[in-house]
């Protein structure tokens, strides 16, 4: 019989072996780079989503067509109209010759706003200190209408200042209602969706891709072979998470560059804290992905679970699309446990409002503890056998 000691166990076989780990990460990158679908999800989806939200699905008002009824045609009305025409929000497409046309011009539906000046506008303004402008908007789209009216009011107010200075301040002081939107004076949609898209993409790449790629090893049977090897299963899993971590960091960079240079959303606050915040969120998402993969064996199931359990709540309950304040208490309570909600909130504070890191301590703490709990649970749930 053969001598047993002639087959020594390899030294350090159960320890974490860096060579093993590196080879495994390389293998994972091969999988990613060789699968066109994975590549598309990783690199095209973020750009696609951002551009889609940025240019197509937008709540911004741009180039609203306006019609004007101006019986005065004097210095005052000219000043206001010039200013409107000059802004990127409005485009004067029609001048009405009689007030009878007002209704028909709306019925044709081609204009978003009608500006009606009173007669002898400038004269009245200078002498009596009072002149009327009527703004008529299409109320069938109330959101749009209120935005348009806000813009127009702001322009009129500015013109008024100009007129006052032209008359040498001779005019009595006038109170003009002024609506000012904090942080997002132009109501740019990008300010709202960039943090949302960031949250969605991180979740998608980290949680969905990680869980699907681990499920793939189970489904195709390679996990079976890997389990019957000296490599500790947990390192197999960690090695799978590393490439997706890198991918998320790359995507984070892409999103931020796109926001700043293409969508004109500046990073108002500290970039450092924005990155720290994102990294913590990436860890939370990765551990969610690993957790999902510990309960499923099929890629499709992993995809469905991450889609239904992670993506839908992120879209619906993170405040990205629908304001949380208007939701029933049950949904609001549910939203508290959605990591993306806290992430999006904190990104808005740091990136859009430019607040300091002390304003996001709560979010950082919540996300940090979520990461710790999720990593602990997924490690505990992790199986060293097939079931």
């Amino acid at each position, binding site marked *: 019989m*053969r001598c*047993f000691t002639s087959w020594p166990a390899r030294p350090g076989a159960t320890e974490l072996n860096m060579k093993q780990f590196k*080879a*495994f990460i390389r293998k994972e990158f091969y999988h990613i780079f060789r699968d066109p679908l994975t590549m598309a999800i990783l690199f095209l989806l973020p750009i696609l989503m951002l551009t889609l939200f940025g240019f197509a699905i937008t709540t911004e008002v741009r180039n609203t067509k306006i019609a004007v009824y101006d019986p005065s045609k004097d210095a005052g009305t000219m000043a206001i109209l010039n200013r409107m025409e000059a802004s990127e929000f409005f485009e004067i497409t029609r001048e009405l010759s009689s007030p009878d046309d007002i209704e028909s011009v709306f019925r044709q539906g081609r204009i978003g706003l009608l500006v009606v000046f009173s007669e002898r506008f400038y004269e009245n303004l200078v002498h009596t200190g009072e002149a009327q402008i009527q703004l008529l908007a299409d109320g069938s789209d109330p959101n749009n209408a209120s935005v348009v009216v806000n813009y127009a009011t702001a322009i009129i107010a500015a013109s008024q200042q100009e007129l006052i200075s032209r008359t040498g301040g001779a005019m009595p002081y006038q109170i003009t209602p002024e609506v000012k939107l904090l942080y997002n004076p132009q109501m740019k949609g990008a300010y709202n969706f960039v943090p949302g898209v960031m949250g969605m993409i991180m979740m998608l790449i980290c949680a969905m891709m990680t869980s699907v790629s681990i499920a793939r090893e189970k489904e195709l*049977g390679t996990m*079976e072979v890997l389990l*019957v090897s*000296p490599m500790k299963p947990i390192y197999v899993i960690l090695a799978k998470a590393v490439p997706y971590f890198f991918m998320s960091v790359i995507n984070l960079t892409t999103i931020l560059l796109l926001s700043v240079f293409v969508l004109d959303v500046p990073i108002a606050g500290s970039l450092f804290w924005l990155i720290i915040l994102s990294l913590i969120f990436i860890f939370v998402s990765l551990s969610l992905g690993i957790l999902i993969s510990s309960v499923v064996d099929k890629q499709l199931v992993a995809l469905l679970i991450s889609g239904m359990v992670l993506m839908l709540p992120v879209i619906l309950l993170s405040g990205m699309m629908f304001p949380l304040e208007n939701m029933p208490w049950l949904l609001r309570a549910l939203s508290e446990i959605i990591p993306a909600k806290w992430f999006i909130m904190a990104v808005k504070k740091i990136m859009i409002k430019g607040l300091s890191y002390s304003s996001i301590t709560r979010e950082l703490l919540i996300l940090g503890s979520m990461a710790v709990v999720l990593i602990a649970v997924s490690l505990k749930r992790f199986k060293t056998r*097939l079931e």
Partner: protein
Amino acid sequence: MKGIVAQNISRKFGRVEALRNVSFEVNQGELFGIIGPDGAGKTTLFRILTTLLLADSGAGEVDGFDIVKDFRKIRQRVGYMPGRFSLYQDLTVEENLKIFATVFNTTIEENYGLIRDIYEQIEPFKKRRAGALSGGMKQKLALCCALIHKPTVLFLDEPTTGVDPISRRDLWEMLVKLKKEQITILVSTPYMDEAGLCDRIALMQHGRLLKIETPAGLAKQFTDALWAVRSLSMSKLLTDLRRHPQVETCYAFGDAHHVTLKAGLLKPEELAAYLAGLGHSDIGVEPITATVEDCFMNLAANKIEL
């Protein structure tokens, strides 16, 4: 010390009893075959012995290590080739071999001698992705990957299923060679004709081992006279033979039906005449020696007695 020991291993999946009291021992350096049809419980047995599944009851040892307590030690020293092709289809032949060598803390060069014979056959395709290989080449690559760390015990779950006859022969030649390296090999197969190459075989059905024997010993136990019967319409022949009161058993094999007769009351010429009377033509009735499959059929039919 034995290479593999299984003691009364039972395992259920829900209400299905996949394994019932399976016990056997494999000597070190022995080529041991588990022969049985699909669903006999072979894969479950392999998974329990390779520490991938836990048995409901019973115990087992691989190379002297307990399959539950010492599962890490077992995982370091065995090679396992699952029944389903379980390599990375999107990696090339070479990359697959390399990754498995690394996983086992070794290099291709270190144990190249062990896999040379079989690797040389797939080496021309080493830049090809594993998913694009033929069935036979896939299994050869899988065997290389399972061998790359020079395991002491090799578990091969149906390595020849879906493989062309020439590759099947190549794979079995390899197994016989590995035996000379003192590697204990447990191999399962649904093909009874492969059983003859094993040192010993265990016949398995419905989660039970029916018999453990050497191939020669098994054939010797088949004491009844066995006849191979042919005619032009084989399916009609099967029903006609089974209807005959003097026919004990009749099973369809590849090119003939294998028939045993009740205690010598019927002569082969009489059987041929009976068949001719039923309209069969080109009738052939020849005596043959029993194969493993005949023994299996025989045992499977009598399993209630076991």
